[in-house]
């Protein structure tokens, strides 16, 4: 009896989740009257604005990941090594982006860095891109920090550091040759999450007026019928690919750990 209920709950959940998705996919294939075709996808992929915004977001994602790694790995390492008592506080700070809406942050940015401020970042495209990257990095901070911190927990940070020091290594060498390689899998899963976040992000890019994929998605949605559906499916595919890669990598890491 219990069984039936749980199956029922599961199928309800699945229907709730997959029905809109299937409907979207189906709709995106119906551009040509009377038959299924990939016309909508072809149109989208051929649209130069799609190419522009998508590659802009990919590049931004890569920069965000690089910046996030450079920021988070040394920080998490240092906190674990030298300030273990501050760990809960730091963790709390990294979780703040989850409770502060992006729109609040972005208004804060605009106020702080507008053209009449002491650091007029919004005055140039490069400056605004930089600002947007900081924003993205902040959005992905909770995921990145958690991932890296969990990765650090699996190694004996203090002893490995001392071993490297006694062999003559300085901080940069220790970070680059001992710490980073040992948390690489954690860093990668954080990186894919960051990628997925940046590709779909709308609020910050729109308010900072940058040509990102999120605002393009919104623009298409407001003006076209079939293309937005195709775009949504593409965005979904990208996100899912990221999730799949995380799964793959964690499985791989579990494999090596089991052998340890």
């Amino acid at each position, binding site marked *: 009896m219990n069984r039936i209920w749980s199956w029922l709950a599961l199928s309800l959940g699945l229907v709730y989740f997959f029905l809109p998705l299937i409907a979207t996919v189906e709709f995106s294939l119906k551009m040509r009257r009377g038959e299924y075709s990939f016309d909508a996808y072809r149109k989208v992929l051929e649209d130069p604005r799609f190419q522009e915004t998508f590659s802009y977001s990919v590049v931004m994602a890569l920069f965000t990941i690089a910046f996030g790694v450079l920021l988070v790995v040394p920080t998490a390492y240092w906190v674990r090594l030298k300030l273990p008592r501050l760990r809960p506080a730091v963790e709390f700070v990294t979780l703040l982006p989850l409770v502060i809406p992006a729109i609040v942050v972005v208004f804060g940015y605009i106020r702080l860095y507008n053209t009449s401020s002491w650091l007029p970042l919004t005055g140039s495209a490069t400056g605004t891109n930089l600002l947007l990257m900081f924003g993205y990095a902040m959005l992905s901070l909770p995921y990145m920090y958690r991932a890296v911190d969990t990765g650090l927990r699996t*190694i004996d940070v203090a002893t490995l550091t001392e*071993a490297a020091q*006694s*062999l003559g*290594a300085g901080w940069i060498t220790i970070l680059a040759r001992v710490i980073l390689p040992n948390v690489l899998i954690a860093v990668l899963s954080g990186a894919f999450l960051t990628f997925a976040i940046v590709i779909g992000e709308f609020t910050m890019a729109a308010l900072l007026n940058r040509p990102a994929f999120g605002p393009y998605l919104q623009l298409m949605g407001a003006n076209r019928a079939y293309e937005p559906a195709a775009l949504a499916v593409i965005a979904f595919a990208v996100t899912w690919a990221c999730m799949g890669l995380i799964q793959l990598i964690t499985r791989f890491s579990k494999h090596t750990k089991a052998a340890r």
Partner: protein
Amino acid sequence: MAFLKIAHLEKFFGPMQVVKDFNLEVEQGEFVSLLGPSGCGKTTVLRMVAGFEAPTSGVISIEDQDVVRLKPNQRNIGMVFQAYALFPNLTVAQNVAFGLRVKGVPRSEIKSRVTEMLDLIGLPDLANRYPFQLSGGQQQRVALARALAVRPQVLLLDEPLSALDAKIRVSLRNEIRLIQKKLGITTIFVTHDQEEALSMSDRVVVMHKGIADQVGTPFEIYNKPTTKFVATFVGTLNIIEAEVTDPAAGQVRIGATTATLGRPLPKGKITLAARPEMVSLGTVPGRATLLKGRVIDVDFLGSVIRLRADIGGSVLAFDTFNNPNIVPPAVGDEVEMALNAADLLLIDG
């Protein structure tokens, strides 16, 4: 001047003094052990030599160079940890090469040095394994090779054998000693295992509550302990209550027996101590003092039999060799034990 010199070393953690006026001089090529109970400050002394802890005061110099101000990576010191601490992402060869690469040693030289080191530790075939593919003993040998590859001035080992099981512990300690002698490297070895310290070392430092109680050869430490702590901590000790009958001649009464220690003693009641091997069952030439007692415990250990006898107020534990032709004493038997009174240690105070 000694190769490694530690003078008046002190360390406070907050209000707690962990190391007190620690002095030690180690000659080049010498193997010195720090032996002491848990929490006595052995690791702290070692970490100050390595540079991981800053001394509150005191001097540490290597080859006449004061190293206290140098960072760990500026000191030329090799360190082996209890937990091996191999880099999990690097192969055995890469682990051994790590220090050489950091120092910018040319590739060809790194290669030959790694080969040399792996031969030295007897693992030439494991160069391409990862640490997780090695046994504990193998990992610790690789850690030793890694520490030695950079040709450090001093090698420090912090309980390197504690995580290993008994058999490997003994074979590896012999191997470490052999390698140490072969390279002639000045070594400080931390342990709380007295057998390890006594069997491996040129000299042993017995530490107690942050102080170096006694520094001496294993023979001196074991046979001529200078403090009560050393006497009781190293080896087994029988405590014998005695009464001095003639302080000048060193004459005492133990139970019903009168013995002459042959050195001046304080007046009144004193506490003496005897190692098990100072006591033998029955009469033995050279052991003139005879004590009578009743056997209260017989422990058959195979090649030896450990007996405990009550001599009236004190209990003596001692060993006798198992002789298949002689029936050992049983509990309750009256036995006679012989010892040389001059050997007895005075551990009052």
